[in-house]
């Protein structure tokens, strides 16, 4: 029983990352009908921006000009990095996607791949290939609940992820901008004719998705503090799987599917020999898609997608 519960805790943390990253894929698809394959690398960029913001704030605090407690540094790091990374996302949209909006879908798809490679290589050139250690802003503490080990980091990660998903949902459902996004997702050919600026909404969507990826990147840095330029590749691909599993363009779907993917991976590894983890995990997902080809929350008609 404790074994089972321990794995539930493990899966909740691991699923949070998939969910946060999958949301970015899903939103962009919902509005613009394209997958931003550079998203995993935006996650990496967000993590590195977080690294520099956190290091800067820790350094500033150490000089004694203003003394900040570590929890405040963590909060500030997340907020500042989300804002900075959203600009990176908007820049990617402006440079990589807007000029290609009327180009064939395949061109837009490989744009993402190319931007991803460019981001990785730029990082490699700027910072070199050595590993960076994400600053330890949250002193790790392990609590023992009837044999189940829970750390303050795990609680923080799951809590912040859920909070961000809730705020995103609030934004999309309750604000005018959110309504514009949903309208665009419904029909992006006609809605701009009603006076909704397509370019602004596209930039907003990329910005929001990138901000979430940055948050994921920083939370990831606190849990897995070894960073490298290719850290976003595998997790980006797997989060893409979660986005599809959730149903293309569905926000709730992406969030739920992210956690489902986390659970499937962790439990495949804990029940079967861990060598077969990905084989079993992704066979299960293939099976789900065979029976639900539009994903868990996706709709039959792809032209009428809902955010």
């Amino acid at each position, binding site marked *: 029983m404790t074994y089972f519960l321990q794995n539930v805790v493990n899966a909740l943390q691991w699923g949070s990352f998939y969910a946060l990253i999958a949301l970015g894929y899903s939103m962009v698809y919902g509005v613009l009908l394209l997958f931003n394959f550079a998203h995993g690398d935006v996650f990496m960029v967000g993590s590195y921006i977080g690294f520099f913001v956190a290091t800067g704030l820790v350094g500033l605090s150490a000089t004694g000009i203003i003394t900040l407690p570590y929890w405040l540094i963590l909060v500030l790091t997340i907020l500042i990095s989300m804002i900075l990374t959203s600009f990176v996302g908007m820049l990617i949209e402006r440079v990589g996607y807007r000029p290609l909006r009327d180009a064939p879908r395949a061109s837009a798809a490989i744009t993402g791949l190319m931007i991803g490679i460019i981001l990785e290589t730029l990082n490699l050139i700027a910072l070199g290939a050595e*590993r960076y250690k994400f600053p330890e802003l949250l002193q790790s503490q392990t609590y023992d609940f009837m044999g189940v080990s829970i750390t303050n980091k795990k609680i923080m990660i799951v809590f912040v992820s859920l909070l961000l998903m809730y705020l995103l949902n609030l934004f999309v459902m309750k604000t005018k901008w959110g309504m514009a996004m949903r309208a665009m997702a419904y029909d992006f050919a006609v809605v701009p004719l009603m006076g909704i600026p397509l370019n602004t909404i596209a930039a907003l969507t990329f910005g929001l998705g990138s901000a979430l990826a940055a948050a994921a990147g920083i939370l990831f840095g606190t849990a897995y503090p070894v960073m490298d330029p290719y850290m976003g590749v595998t997790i980006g691909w797997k989060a893409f799987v979660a986005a599809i599993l959730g149903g293309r363009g569905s926000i709730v779907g992406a969030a739920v599917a992210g956690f489902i993917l986390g659970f499937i*991976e962790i439990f495949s590894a*804990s029940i079967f020999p861990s060598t077969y983890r990905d084989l079993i995990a992704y066979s299960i997902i293939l099976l789900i898609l065979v029976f639900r080809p539009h994903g868990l929350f996706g709709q039959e008609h792809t032209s009428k997608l809902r955010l």
Partner: protein
Amino acid sequence: MNKRVVVSILLLLVLSVLLTACGGGGSDVIRIGINAPLTGDNPKVGEGTKYAAEMWLEDINAAGGLDVGGKKYQVELVIEDNEYKAESATKANTKLITQDEVLLIIGPQSSQQAVPAGGVANDNKTPMISPWSTNPNTTKDRPWVFRTPFLDPFQGPVIANFAAEQFGATKAAVLYDVASDYPKGLAEFFKQAWEEKFGEGSVVAFESFTTKDQDFSAQLTKIKESGADFIFTPQYYSEVPLIVQQAHELGWDKPIVGSDSWGSAELVNLCGDDCDGLFFSTHYAAAGATGATKEFIDRYNAKYGYVPDDVGALTWDTLLIAQTAIQNCGKITGDLAVDRECVRDALANIKDFHGITGDMTFTPEGDPIKCAVIVRISDAGEFEFFKQVCP
């Protein structure tokens, strides 16, 4: 201009560039190829290789060149990046052998690259010495391939014996990367050695993951549940901190033991306090070194600002072995095939070479006979000599 003309001009340009690249290199120059991971997953390994090689070249240049049979030859190092990938390592070897026309190749470092790259060197009859690869397949049935470290089949029992004595352990857990030659090989040799000692089923958890994985919580939860006395994880410095930290966060307070892949200067930077007090087996210990080893460490530290890890030390030994072999050859004819064969034969005949990582004599297989060292990571984060284990 029509298309055909443009294409032929371009082709001519490419050809002329290639030709000029191939030309040059008079008969007074000895070219040595270095195949190292300057970028990719283990850049620190590539850096250590490069720095050691540059230090060696400095010595050669200071002496006015390499003296072979009374004639001084200039030495040129051709350093190729293998990006820590098997495909790139074989490509780099092919380029070094056919295009750069090197006399011999130093590297690749990790077995993942050295095993496939060794095949290329052997097929092309070019001597290759891997300074760091410990997997038996690197040199197996390959008369042209040599190495300077001890082998995994030796390291497996060393760690098994050490853990049994030091911790009084009877149940072992292993966590390794199934997609990488070195950890996979060593994990299996360790398992074999442990089960010979304590019988079938005494390795209570044999868990794996794949390269690039960052979350090991499921595997570590399983290991904790299995009641093992310690974890053996033959992983690299970029993964070890994550494994150790996650184990501690899951409430694991028993020992974690590693192998020579832990021995990077970067490990302690990334791991912090979590790695203090852990043990691993390796080729040499920097803290408390004496003689030529200390001389090398001090010089390296003064030049590059950190204590060299085992890759640096082994690369240094490898270059000196290569130098000895070339000098034992007696002369450079300029005919690459003849010279390469001469160097190979000289390498095979090296006896009692005094290296900074220990004394070596090559077996007919191209492997050295030498001792291993158990290192403890001190509370200050230094690699301390703990004990020596000889075959």
